[in-house]
């Protein structure tokens, strides 16, 4: 493991989890349609979509709780449908909520799940309790835990089997900002230090943007875009420019004919946020000059994931 971690470049291309054309129908409704993606070792992969987009259904297929009507899930190359036990030995997961046995203590929960793993998993309990900062409360009943503590116990449980991939369904749900930060740091730590692939679903854009290396956007059961967070932002929002010109309002009027333009400034110098396709930008600038506007600055604006999402889903918010 140490040598792997020392050469992250070699690890990062290794596919740990792949979903190939997953499709799931409930009656007539297709909840998930032809969803495909790969998750690599050592990366945090975000699965972003509004509630009801098919995230949890997809996750249930990834961990074998539901059978896809079409498509294959491979974990370390093992077909989940045919080699469930060998494949699941590489997986740790929390589906939907960190549901643990509330009438048992944290330690009893971990012992319980370690008995479902190869021998030796129980030996990792003290170390994992330390990792998720639960050592002090490990012998209290889970019913007395806060949601954040249960989420952390759930992660400790998921890590018991030394998984290659950790699947977390909405880990930030219901947590306060401090709890969200804790989970985020833990996830980054696991990916960076242990080379674990982490699959995180979320409906929170800011969360995915801050935590994930790559992201797949799912909407109405379909993946609309997949790629590195930065690249997606560039690809889908490359037409966003900020132009500083005078008179601002008149300049915005000229730019509007090339796309969209907005400004809050009046007849003086002001910033205009516009969307002009890259290949039309030179024409737009010539038109500004011809129209008597002075241009002081032109800059590409880096869009947020939120804007990417709005673009790919056609305006529906998360």
């Amino acid at each position: 493991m140490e040598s792997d971690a020392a050469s992250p470049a070699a690890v990062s291309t290794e596919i740990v989890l792949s979903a190939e054309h997953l499709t799931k129908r409930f009656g007539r409704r297709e909840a998930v349609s032809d969803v495909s993606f790969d998750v690599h070792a050592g990366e945090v992969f975000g699965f972003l979509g509004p509630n009801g987009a098919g995230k949890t259904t997809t996750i249930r297929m990834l961990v074998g709780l539901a059978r896809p009507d079409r498509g294959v899930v491979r974990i370390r190359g093992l077909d989940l449908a045919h080699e469930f036990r060998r494949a699941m030995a590489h997986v740790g997961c929390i589906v939907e909520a960190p549901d643990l046995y509330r009438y048992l203590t944290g330690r009893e929960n971990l012992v319980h799940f370690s008995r479902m793993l190869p021998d030796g998993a129980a030996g990792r309990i003290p170390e994992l309790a330390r990792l998720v900062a639960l050592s002090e409360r490990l012998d209290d009943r889970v019913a007395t835990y806060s949601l954040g503590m249960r989420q952390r116990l759930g992660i400790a449980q998921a890590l018991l089997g030394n998984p290659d991939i950790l699947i977390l369904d909405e880990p930030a749900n219901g947590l306060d900002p401090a709890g969200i930060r804790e989970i985020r740091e833990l996830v980054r730590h696991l990916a960076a230090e242990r080379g674990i692939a982490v699959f995180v679903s979320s409906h929170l854009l800011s969360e995915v943007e801050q935590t994930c290396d790559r992201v797949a956007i799912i909407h109405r059961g379909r993946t609309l875009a997949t790629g590195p967070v930065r690249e997606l932002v560039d690809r889908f929002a490359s037409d966003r420019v900020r132009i500083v010109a005078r008179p601002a309002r008149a300049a915005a009027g000229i730019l509007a004919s090339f796309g969209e333009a907005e400004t809050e400034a009046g007849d003086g110098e002001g910033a205009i946020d516009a969307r002009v396709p890259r290949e039309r930008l030179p024409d737009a600038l010539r038109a500004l000059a011809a129209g008597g506007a002075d241009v002081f600055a032109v800059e590409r604006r880096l869009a947020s994931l939120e804007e990417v999402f709005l673009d790919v889903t056609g305006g529906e918010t998360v």
Partner: protein
Amino acid sequence: MRFSGLVENEILKFTRQRRFRVVVLILVALIGLIVFAQARGRERFRSGKDWHVETQERMARIQNWLRDGRMPASSARWARFELDRLRYHLDRDIDPEAVSGPLFARGFANAASYLLLPLLAIVFASDVVSAEFAQGTIKLLLTRPVGRARVLASKLAALALAITLTVVFGGAVAYVFGGIAYGYAGWGAPVLAGFRAAGERLDPAAVRAIPLWQDAILAYGLAWFAALCVGAIALLTSVLLRSTAAAMGTMLAALIAGTILPRLASSWESQRFLFVTALPLPDYYSGSPPPITGLTVGFGAAVLAAWAAAALAAAFAVFVRRDVLA
């Protein structure tokens, strides 16, 4: 990932839930109440005469009849058994007409096999699977590198163990409480066993005298077997309905229907194929006339076993294949 570890898990969950303690309490309270009520009832009907004298008089009377030789052979067999029985009790200074602790414990097997033991089996079995759905823990349980059939098998093993312990514990409590009220001696007392219903009458050919402890083991064994089969059927309802309340309600309704049906419609002979009618196996074994023609111990046991086997097959098939979406 040994199977014993999985069973240990299930036992841990059984014992840490409140229902286990509730069942223990129910058994203790109920048996205590029965003993108390019976003992009070008996005190009122006691005659003034010493039972030693009474027993000796009866033995003398029977010996006279036997010496007469005018008694038919079948009655002579009964008379000789009665004589042995009375002698056993007199030798050990036990009132032959009184209830002994062992006798009370033996009787409890019959009484409990109708409702109490099946009820407790249902209480245990109903939430074995449905509770995991209700708590959401099913999602963790079925995403470990353990096959689903193995998970359910471990639950079944723990359930069987819980039912076994309940039957043993029930018998033990009945003996302890019965002993307090009636004394602990008398396990060796001869009792008649091997009754067989032949048509509307009892066929005495196979009847023989066995010590009470043997008879008790047989009766409890039958009650245990019936409770296990009910547990298996309740496990299926737990798998199918995924709600503890619904599973328990369904099984209770079946159980109650089973106690009413033979009384209201004893002429409907097909009901002997229902598992609820077959439940009081110890009764059929003890020779009480069967409520429905053709319902013998062997037949009842076969009906229960068939139901249980079918229920388990269905429970495994559904549990292994069904999507977990709750």
